[in-house]
């Protein structure tokens, strides 16, 4: 998983098992509710997609949230016009996001480095501003695009009853949840989660294939030294553009899935700080690694859900065993980092990671693993060394 020792097939199988067990694993942490687990899967997809662009080619896009928003809007429009079935909605969101990525990528990829970042940022901000102003007929402005009872819904108009329909997969409701009791733990098995998780596994598998393919190798070459590639007569543009479009389609899929879980779409999904969050996830986990982005997305979404819930009362509870004055001071300090202030924690952790651990959490795990491994190897080496010395002495004799 963290080295080359484990084969891809094993990684994939392990990955599937972990993803399938998330409802069970997350339950003791208090994170086993459907909305959060869906976020794990969906933002995992988003981060994998971003990593295909940033991790492989080194092009830092600061406008990826635009594709997420476009995907959401497309999916909700499909729900409104065609059917509440999620399949056409997802297909459309991937396609539309792909077209957007093609256009934006075609223009932005003419420049590299910081200029590329600024260009993608400019395009994303344009989409965001337009969604709020002129495109209100399509995006419904600040209210956000929502379902309504009098939507046409050509394919399932017959089934529309007095209440708003929910997205489904051939009749299987995305919100359907079955609570199972496992050793006293309430484990919630949510269809929406498993549906997204299936896509996560698919996305992971495709990313893995890309990483191992000649195409992926070419992208890595772009990151390492684009000039040298150009000098050898390779036109890198088609490769980077392909990576950009794939990455955009991943984001579109994630946006579509978000709409499937909760059928509404708003422009705030496209604001540039949302793009920043995608970058945070990828870097925190480890850009350029297969598993890093997914770990980053999960950690951030988990921390967001947990930390933002604590308030001063809860924090004070932790320090109850301390003397009053000290407890109050500690509470005052710690309370700044949780609840509404959890972004402060995020920012600090992110700065620390970028400064000391540019490879992200995955590199951290690898370093710890390497440290433990080296201690084992050291003994071997010492033994080897003494053997050699022994050999020398015998030879001298």
């Amino acid at each position: 998983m963290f080295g080359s020792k484990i084969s891809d097939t094993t990684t994939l199988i392990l990955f599937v098992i972990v993803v399938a067990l998330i409802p069970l694993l997350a339950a003791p942490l208090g994170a086993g509710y459907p909305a959060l687990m869906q976020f794990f899967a969906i933002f995992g997809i988003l981060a994998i997609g971003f990593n295909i662009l940033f991790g492989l080619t080194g092009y830092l896009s600061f406008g990826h949230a635009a594709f997420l928003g476009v995907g959401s809007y497309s999916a909700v429009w499909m729900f409104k016009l065609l059917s509440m079935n999620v399949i056409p909605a997802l297909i459309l969101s991937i396609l539309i996001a792909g077209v957007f990525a093609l256009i934006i990528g075609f223009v932005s990829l003419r420049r590299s480095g910081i200029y590329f970042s600024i260009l993608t940022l400019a395009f994303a901000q344009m989409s965001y501003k337009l969604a709020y102003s002129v495109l209100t007929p399509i995006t419904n402005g600040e209210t956000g695009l929502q379902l309504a009872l009098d939507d046409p819904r050509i394919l399932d108009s017959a089934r529309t009853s007095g209440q708003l329909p929910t997205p489904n997969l051939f009749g299987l409701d995305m919100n359907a949840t079955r609570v199972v009791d496992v050793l006293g733990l309430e484990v919630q098995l949510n269809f929406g989660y498993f549906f997204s998780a299936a896509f996560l596994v698919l996305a992971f598998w495709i990313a893995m294939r890309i990483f191992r393919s000649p195409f992926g190798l070419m992208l890595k070459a772009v990151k390492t030294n684009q000039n040298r590639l150009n000098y050898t007569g390779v036109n890198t543009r088609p490769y980077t553009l392909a990576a950009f479009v794939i990455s955009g389609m991943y984001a579109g899929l994630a946006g579509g899935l978000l709409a499937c879980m909760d059928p509404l779409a708003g422009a705030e999904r496209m604001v540039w700080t949302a793009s920043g969050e995608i970058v945070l996830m990828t870097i925190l986990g480890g850009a350029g690694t297969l598993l890093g982005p997914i770990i980053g997305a999960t950690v951030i979404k988990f921390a967001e859900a947990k930390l933002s819930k604590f308030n001063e009362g809860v924090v004070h509870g932790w320090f109850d065993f301390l003397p009053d004055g000290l407890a109050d001071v500690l509470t005052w300090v710690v309370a700044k980092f949780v609840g509404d202030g959890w972004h402060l924690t995020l920012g600090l952790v992110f700065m620390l990671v970028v400064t000391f651990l540019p490879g992200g959490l995955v590199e951290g795990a690898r370093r710890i693993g390497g440290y433990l491994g080296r201690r084992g190897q050291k003994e071997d080496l010492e033994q080897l060394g003494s053997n050699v010395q022994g050999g020398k002495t015998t030879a001298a004799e």
Partner: protein
Amino acid sequence: MGDIVLQILNGLDKGSAYALIALGLTLIFGTLGVVNFAHGALFMLGAFVTVTFTNLLSFERVTLSETETTAWGSPLEIREPVLQAWFGDFGLWLIDYSVLVSILVAIPIMFIIGVVMERGLIKHFYSRPHAEQILVTFGLAIVLQEIVRTFYGANSISQSAPDALRGMMDFGVVLGFEPGMVPYPTWRFVYFFFAVVVIGGVFAFLQFTTFGMVVRAGMADRETVGLLGIDIDKRFTFMFGLAATVAGLAGVMYTPILSPNYQLGMDFLVLSFIVVVVGGMGSLPGAVAAGFLLGILQSFASMNEVKEIIPGIDQIIIYLVAVIILLTRPRGLLGRAGVMED
């Protein structure tokens, strides 16, 4: 004609803010080669220095009146700013002019913040890729704005300009138009004037002092200046402090125009970056020119006549210009060759 002058004037105040922030960004980029995503946060910090300073100045003392009583029979509370009690009219004058007076406070504070930032964090990122510089300063920006939020809350805090500078002035009369044709808020004119002074000051400092000459030499060829036995790092640290001060002052003076909240910096950061890129990475005159240009363009785009032809243009004009410039003149308007062209 009056309309056009009015739109140009309207563009000037936003343009001044863009120009000031972009100037600082370019200074940092040109000297240290660092892409500073936390620069908007410095603008925001400047604004909050004013907020804090005004709060301190208008600290009130409550005394109970001995003669007057309220309708309920309890003694009337008299609220009186401490400064007024101490200094009388001069105290009131200080409170009225708190925004202008806070400039004096903001200069050392912002300079120290800038130097601490450079020595404490940015220093370690010189030899690392630009992507990592962007990321770490982006993280720093989040941290700074969240710290401000924990202390000041998420709501905008309004600041008022001094009484004498609060109203409208009839700028048209100066240019020979009919009175009443070009009404313009006085404070925005003050802001523009202030921006011109600061920008002029920075340019003069770079152009006419020995220190500035060394810095310019360092921007052109850092290694050679180092070989001549000059501690260029120390001077660049000073320039970072100066850039932080310029951004902070831009924020201080902007408070009466736009009530600051903790996200103020992020909004301005994106636009200022675009200003820098349009002006040409590493070019100081380019940054200033592009700042004013984009500010004016934006105000023209928000005219109703223009909006009728191209709906929504006011929202995206800056980004659109940036895209066009980057694609047609990759170095920006006044950019030098060889800057960030890897």
